[in-house]
């Protein structure tokens, strides 16, 4: 032991040895492609001929000329704001509910958690079926009580709200996180508030909320980062709801109906892998990266428990 500890060079080597899988992974699968993305954003490259330098032309193309950039950015920001806000409020409400349940808590926890596990593609296909305007069970039930249901995934106005509903079905992760946070709030504080004659709202506002703020912050920031990557559900919902035959090789316009579900990541895929416009796709990637980094830095600043416990 004395030998290993007294020898700094050997210790450094040992540390490097343990870290080596990640060091290789970080350089090859993160740093290199990131630099290459920046490089390609200044190149014209159709993935066949050699890349040629075009200066800022890809950048001006994306920001000024590309017709789908506006809708895609709008949809992504819409989803980031609405989906994250609704999910956090609903997740917190369910967390509060589950901590109040005295009978059958295990059953309810499982019921609320289970849909989170449904693979996104399967959950989306299921929701497109449940919400299909003609014969879907949801509209059938609504009709039975005299309401004519909306067209859900087939109407540009309700397509994104339908995706929000899908995301609420999979609220399980947030519910568990909030539940754990709520159970961590010291009981004595509630008892003290009771003695002061505090009502339910006052207790939430002055005892619960301050204690769980870091977790709410954490949920918001990770929610924003996840929603910026929002891809699978939007793509699958659009494709399946459109009813277009999607064999391999067939190119479809993403974002059905009427670009209302087109997100920035989908546009990256379309530009890079369907139009082979590598430069413009890389510009979009960097826009995504910039937003993600800004949010991550915010997370670091607020700490929210992520980097604590440095022992």
């Amino acid at each position, binding site marked *: *032991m004395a030998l290993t500890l007294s020898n700094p060079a050997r*210790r*450094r080597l040992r540390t490097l040895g*343990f*870290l080596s*899988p*990640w060091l290789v*992974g*970080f350089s*090859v*699968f*993160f740093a290199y*492609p*990131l630099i*290459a*993305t920046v490089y*390609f954003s200044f190149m014209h490259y159709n*993935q066949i001929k050699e890349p040629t330098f075009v200066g800022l032309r890809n950048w001006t193309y994306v920001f000024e000329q590309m017709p789908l950039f506006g809708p895609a950015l709008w949809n992504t920001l819409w989803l980031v704001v609405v989906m994250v806000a609704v999910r956090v409020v609903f997740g917190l409400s369910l967390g509060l*509910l589950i901590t109040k*349940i005295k*009978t*059958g808590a*295990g059953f309810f926890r499982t019921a*609320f958690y*289970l849909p989170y*596990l*449904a*693979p996104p*593609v*399967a959950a989306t*296909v299921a929701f497109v*079926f*449940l919400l299909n305007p003609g014969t879907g*069970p949801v509209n*059938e039930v609504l009709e039975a009580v005299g309401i004519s249901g909306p067209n859900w995934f087939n109407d540009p106005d309700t397509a994104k709200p339908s995706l929000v509903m899908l995301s609420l*079905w999979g609220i399980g*992760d947030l519910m*568990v*996180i909030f539940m*754990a*946070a709520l159970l961590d709030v010291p009981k004595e504080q509630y008892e003290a508030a009771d003695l002061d004659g505090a009502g339910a709202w006052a207790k939430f506002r002055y005892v619960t909320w301050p204690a769980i703020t870091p977790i709410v912050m954490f949920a918001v920031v990770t929610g924003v980062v996840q929603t910026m990557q929002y*891809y699978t559900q939007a*793509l699958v919902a659009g494709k*399946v709801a459109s*009813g277009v*035959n999607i064999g*391999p090789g067939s190119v479809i316009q993403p974002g059905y109906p009427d670009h209302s579900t087109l997100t920035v*990541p989908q546009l*990256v*895929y379309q530009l*890079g892998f369907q139009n082979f416009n590598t430069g413009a796709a890389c510009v979009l*990637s*960097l826009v995504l990266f910039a937003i993600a*980094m800004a949010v*991550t830095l915010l997370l670091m600043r607020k700490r929210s*428990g*992520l*980097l604590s*416990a440095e*022992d």
Partner: protein
Amino acid sequence: MTTTTLGAPAAPAPAPPQPHGPAAARARRKRVLHWIAVHSVAIAVALLFVLPFVFVFLTSVMSDSQAMSGDLWPDSWHWSNYKTVFETPGFLDWWRNSLLYAGLGTLFTVCSAIPVAYALAKFRFRGRRTAMLLVISTMMLPPQVIVIPMYLVWAQQFHLSGTLWPLIIPMAFGDAYSIFLLRQFLLTIPKEYIESAKVDGCGEFRTMVKIVVPMAKPGIAAIALFQFFYCWNDYFGPQIYAAQNPGAWTLSYGLESFKSAHSVNWNMTMAATLLVMAPVIVIFFFAQKAFVEGVTLTGVKG
């Protein structure tokens, strides 16, 4: 109440013996009303969460013609739909590919994450904080940001497009999310265990294998489960690398094409949908504890 038959043994908590009298009766009534209110809301919400599964299942056993109608309850039960799904060309290949991707991906991730997480949690070295910041940055990075250069490397240098290997191989080099989670878990292992192992003459590697890994089993189980689910659910990765070769599709990727192959046959699509959901749900029931532990690890501990 019907809820008592549904699950956990916990009874509505009887408070300590109450003094008699009108005030006590009022308090008791308030408690009962509160119990009823909470459980009614809970039952209503639980129904909303469970009903989608029920509708999907009921449709999956309908006849072709009934599945096109708006009926909610099957006239006759066509279990053979599931057999038809299994006999769809490619369906078994997708299963095999999903298992290969998720199985190997999980194995690689766990093996590479353990030493890195151990070093980040327990070694003191210069740049430790920077390394941790970089891990978290990687974790936050949308996969779409780096996908184009990565694809070009795998396709042009290694000629591996049309396979799942470009998704599996990187997992042998440390997945950031798994490293982060496992490190958070390892922080909770007291230093004394590790020091006493070294006093006994164990090197760092032996200490890791003999002491840390057995103590970190719940954490390792959590990252293994998460990674397995991540691979099983992944759609973007297979779409990038395997789209052009149906022989390499996974269940998650193939499912969507299933809908187009059976066009309007919601019954077949719903049967396939349930078959894609089934493995994760079965695994969940066997590993519930590790799972919930892992989820809370992401946000609460640390």
